[in-house]
């Protein structure tokens, strides 16, 4: 069974003069345990796609299924990481991580150890009693990832999670995410507008066109794992990046 199955999914936003087509008949599948990146220019409907899969936004047409069941609303077997960490300032780091447990009433006591293990997995042991404002942007986003993993969801939806970080922190986070993914083997749908990031992280890269968003290419990345940051300099890395960029240039997305 496919972890994510999207069929002819469309989303229209009504505006004052007609409606805007954010997504147009998108279809793709993601297998269980696969890491899929979606890359596209700003405003191509990437975030809309993620919100529909997260059950926050209804689709206009078509269907999306997660593990065989159609999406009708928010569900408990997914973890979402947003562009910004979205931590609650009045909760300590530990309480922020345990938010899904509190909301879904899964038992704080049982998950305390899970939370501590996850925090050390992302390199934040010793910070559980701290508050969000005491942490750097990269650390906050790690907390957000931990929060998305705490209720052991089958899949992770990530919406440009490292977009707000500086280049060096971002590379570090890419490595960390790969390590976490190799250890936990979740299905991941990772949205980004960085082509190298998508190639570095993903098994498959879905390339989206500008609005109305649809998928114009599906690239298999066959670089062995674990990939080190040096992999970006390997001869097999460049062709992937080049090929995806060429698709955008052909569409007139990237001016060069």
């Amino acid at each position, binding site marked *: 069974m496919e972890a994510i199955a999207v069929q002819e999914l469309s989303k229209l936003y009504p505006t004052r003069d007609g409606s805007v087509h954010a997504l147009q008949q998108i279809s793709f599948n993601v297998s269980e345990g696969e890491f899929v990146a979606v890359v596209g220019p700003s405003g191509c409907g990437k975030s809309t796609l993620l*919100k529909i899969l*997260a*059950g*926050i936004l209804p689709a206009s047409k078509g269907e999306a299924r997660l593990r065989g069941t159609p999406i009708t*609303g*928010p*569900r*408990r077997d*997914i973890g*979402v990481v*947003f*562009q*910004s960490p*979205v931590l*609650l*300032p*009045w909760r300590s780091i530990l309480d922020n991580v345990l*938010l*899904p447990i*509190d*909301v*879904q009433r899964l038992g704080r006591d049982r998950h305390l150890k899970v939370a501590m293990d996850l925090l050390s997995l992302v390199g934040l042991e010793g910070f559980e009693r701290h*508050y969000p*404002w005491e942490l750097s942007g990269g650390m906050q986003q790690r907390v957000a990832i931990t929060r998305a993993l705490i209720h052991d969801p089958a899949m992770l939806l990530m919406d440009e999670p490292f977009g707000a970080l500086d280049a060096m922190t971002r590379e570090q986070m890419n490595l960390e995410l790969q390590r976490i993914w190799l250890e936990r083997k979740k299905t991941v749908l990772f949205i980004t507008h960085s082509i190298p990031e998508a190639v570095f992280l993903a098994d498959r890269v879905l390339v989206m066109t500008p609005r109305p968003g649809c998928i114009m290419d599906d690239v298999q990345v066959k670089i062995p794992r674990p990939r080190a940051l040096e992999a970006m300099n390997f001869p097999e890395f460049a062709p992937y990046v080049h090929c995806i960029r060429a698709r955008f240039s052909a569409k007139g997305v990237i001016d060069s």
Partner: protein
Amino acid sequence: MKNARNVALTIVLFCSSILVWEVIVRAFEVPTFIFPAPSQVATALWRGFASGLYQKHLYYTLVETVLGFLLGSALGFFLGTAVALNRYVEYFFYPYIVMFQSLPKVALAPLIVVWFGLGLKSQVINTALVAFFPLLVNTIVGLKSTDEDRMNLMRSLAASDSQVFWMLRLPNALPFVMAGLDVAMIFALIGAIVAEFVGARAGLGMLIQSMNFNMDVSGQFSVLLILSIVGLLLNRCILLIRRRVLFWDPSEKERLERERVVI
């Protein structure tokens, strides 16, 4: 070291201004019923407390201020919550709220005396009426200012409406609610004094008025002194609670920084 110097400087400045006031009043032989000297105010203050007169009225004013504050802010908070959470309540109540808001609430004091008499009840109602609106308005604004990203987070976790309220909207509204309490506390004292002016059997406001009839200006000065200290202490209480509750609010830390005046 610098701190000790500042404290010393403050004390010297305070004492010398009191001294200058005393000297000017004596040198120009200003009549006591126009402008009393600090020594006369101090005498009035001492006499008032020694006879037990001030304690009685101070207690009365404190009781009505605190009761009115609690009653008014609690009602303001609950109605504000109802307006923010329920479209129908908002639709039917909000026009009246807006209308009442622009009305100076103390103007209702004479009517309230007519309806509820000269007793404590009347002053508490008047105080509550004044303390009500800051809480109402701030609670509505606070509950409606929830960040969209945070709402999406809660929704993605399949949180129920009541969970969204308790875990997100209410804590998020607390900085606004605390700011409302801050204003309501100051307003409550004003409301209590005005209510006493209009008609009461006891209280510092009533005392000021009866002293005014008797041309006891030094007495009035001494009561004003008490009132300003009471106001300051009540405000400090709210500030302490605020710091406790909003330990996580970045704007609270900025405020603390700003309050610390450095010479």
